[in-house]
């Protein structure tokens, strides 16, 4: 039997072990889709929702607020600065931003269904406020930033979270399990090459990774209408790199632990902070600015930022230097440390 036979058999065993575990199938394939569906539909705007308009405080903003009172469906929120208001628009907290210039300027996001309603309501309110003016004086500006629905923001984050979860659990948990069963020890008394053992984990992950990505991305694009502007190759490369990072961290977490409880605890210790700080459900930019450079060093932040850049902004992986560097760095460090401290017995 050759080296390849050994790797093939070890990989086959990993794959079989996985697909015969119904819970694992649920967590890897069904759970992220359910989560995306629930959140996606929950944040899809309803038909008769009021329009929320951000007004930037400045000279003339009082008159605008007065004018908007004409329409009961126009909800006004006041902001001190333009930046603040625009950031709300990007995160879909408001449907349009009005600045009190002469003429006033309305910014909206044309890809959003709510945008047209917002534009019409603002125009009508201004027309009513200025008697006789059929076309009220106003500048219209289209937000060029894409993906401002919450689900558009959320979806790449869910892919990142899924890559992290399946990598860590799929590899870390499986290694801790074979060690606990003393199966690892049994392998050690055979001439099995240790590299084949690790390789089999990576390869079995690769098999499922491709299926996960096709299912998740397909669901996002076809069902939720999430934009997919980047090239598929960049998307796949970013995902592969992400999977590799979390494979390394999975091996690292499982390098020494002997029990399932031990590995679960360590796993959560690593993953829970990243669910919160790496911009899965909401942007990490909501944390104080001083923290941003630190948060960008987290592996999941790098992956999520890269996924959003590719999916929403249509960037290529080659323009994502910092994100790719962060992920490569984690890869190198986690594999180097994990293989060094790995306890075979």
């Amino acid at each position, binding site marked *: *039997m050759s080296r390849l*036979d*050994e790797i*093939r*058999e*070890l990989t*086959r*065993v990993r794959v*079989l*072990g996985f697909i*015969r*575990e119904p819970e694992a199938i649920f967590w890897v394939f069904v759970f992220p889709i359910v989560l995306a569906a629930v959140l996606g539909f929950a944040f899809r705007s309803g038909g008769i929702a009021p329009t929320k308009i951000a007004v930037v405080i400045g000279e003339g903003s009082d008159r605008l607020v007065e004018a908007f009172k004409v329409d009961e469906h126009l909800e006004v929120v006041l902001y001190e600065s333009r930046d603040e208001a625009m950031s709300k628009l990007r995160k879909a907290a408001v449907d349009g931003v009005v600045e009190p210039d002469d003429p006033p300027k309305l910014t909206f996001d044309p890809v959003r269904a709510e945008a047209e309603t917002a534009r019409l309501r603002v125009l009508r309110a201004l027309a009513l406020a200025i008697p006789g003016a059929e076309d009220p004086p106003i500048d219209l500006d289209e937000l060029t930033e894409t993906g401002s629905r919450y689900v558009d923001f959320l979806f790449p984050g869910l892919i990142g979270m899924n890559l992290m979860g399946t990598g860590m659990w799929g590899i870390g948990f499986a290694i801790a399990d*074979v060690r*606990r*069963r*003393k*199966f690892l*020890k*049994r*392998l*050690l*008394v*055979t*001439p*099995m090459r240790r590299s084949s053992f690790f390789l089999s984990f990576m390869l079995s992950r690769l098999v499922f990774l491709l299926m996960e990505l096709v299912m998740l991305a397909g669901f996002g694009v076809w069902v939720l209408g999430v934009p997919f502007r980047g090239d598929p190759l960049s998307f796949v490369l970013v995902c592969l790199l992400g999977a590799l990072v979390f494979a390394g961290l999975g091996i690292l977490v499982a390098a020494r632990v002997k029990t399932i409880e031990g590995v679960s605890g360590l796993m959560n210790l690593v993953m829970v902070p990243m669910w919160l700080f790496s911009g899965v459900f909401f942007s990490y930019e909501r944390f104080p600015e001083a923290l941003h450079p630190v948060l960008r060093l987290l592996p999941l932040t790098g992956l999520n930022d890269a996924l959003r850049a590719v999916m929403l902004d249509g960037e290529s992986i080659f323009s994502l230097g910092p994100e790719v560097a962060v992920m490569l760095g984690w890869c190198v460090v986690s594999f180097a440390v994990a293989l060094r401290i790995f306890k075979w*017995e």
Partner: protein
Amino acid sequence: MKEVSHSIENTVEQGDAAVQVRGLVKRYGELTAVDGIDFEVKRGTCLGVLGPNGAGKTTTIEILEGLKTPDEGMVRILGQSWDDDPRAIQERIGVQLQETDFQDKLKVFEMLRLFRSFYSKGADLNDIIELIGLTEKRNAFVKDLSGGQRQRLSVGCALLNNPEMLFLDEPTTGLDPQARRRVWEVIDTFKAEGGTVLLTTHYMEEAERLADDLLILDHGRVIARGSPASIIATLEAESVVSFSIASDGEASLSDEELQALDGVQSLRHEGNGIVLSVTQTQSVIAGLFELVKIRGLQVDNLHTHRPTLEDVFVSLTGKHLRDE
């Protein structure tokens, strides 16, 4: 340490020994688990390593399997050292470890196919499945096997490379007698084809049935060695007589009185009973009844049996092999 092992090595003739062990020492902190053990296993024979829990059996066998490194001493497996080319040894030996939990979600033939893939050459899967008597369970999940079937699968995984030498660490612990015999049959077949076996056990019956030679360990040291018959012969007893004395009052028999009986070689207490190693069974029992009659006592639970390894072990250590 290196130098010592080399000088010893040079004095050892290669001969036909499958395993050679000289001055083996393994310490865990304060505890010396293996305390200077020497032995050899001749090709085509089976060596049984006996001893109670904690005697150093598993540590010894795991050093031989290459899982642990000894602190001192020399080990050669099939003429090779673990320091030279571990994979070359691994290709030639088969190992069954204590308490390996084989993955549940795999089928019998899948598990065997996995292990077969690690070896450059070896047996046909179907031959092994037949040998271990799992033909009908070929497609069964490992988790659905009985304890005995799982143990035979474990031995099967150790036979896939047609090994010259088999290491078995308590291969039948926890099995019922029927399941135990079926594991023995697999080992018998391997032996019949000229294979060398080293097994640890704390079952006397297993040692007597499978082993050509025995090594009895206690506290990391060899306390007896030789064929089962020669070890039993060291007791120099014809039989072992055990009994208890039913007494309602103060009256009893003293150890001195019993030892004075003609033919009693040694005496020990076990629970409420007394166990005598005797050279002349008939005269001891006659003497015992006479004593009892004079004192107005009664003998209960009188048994006699031919001396076993267990008796040797107890006489050497004062302990039973299995402490249940």
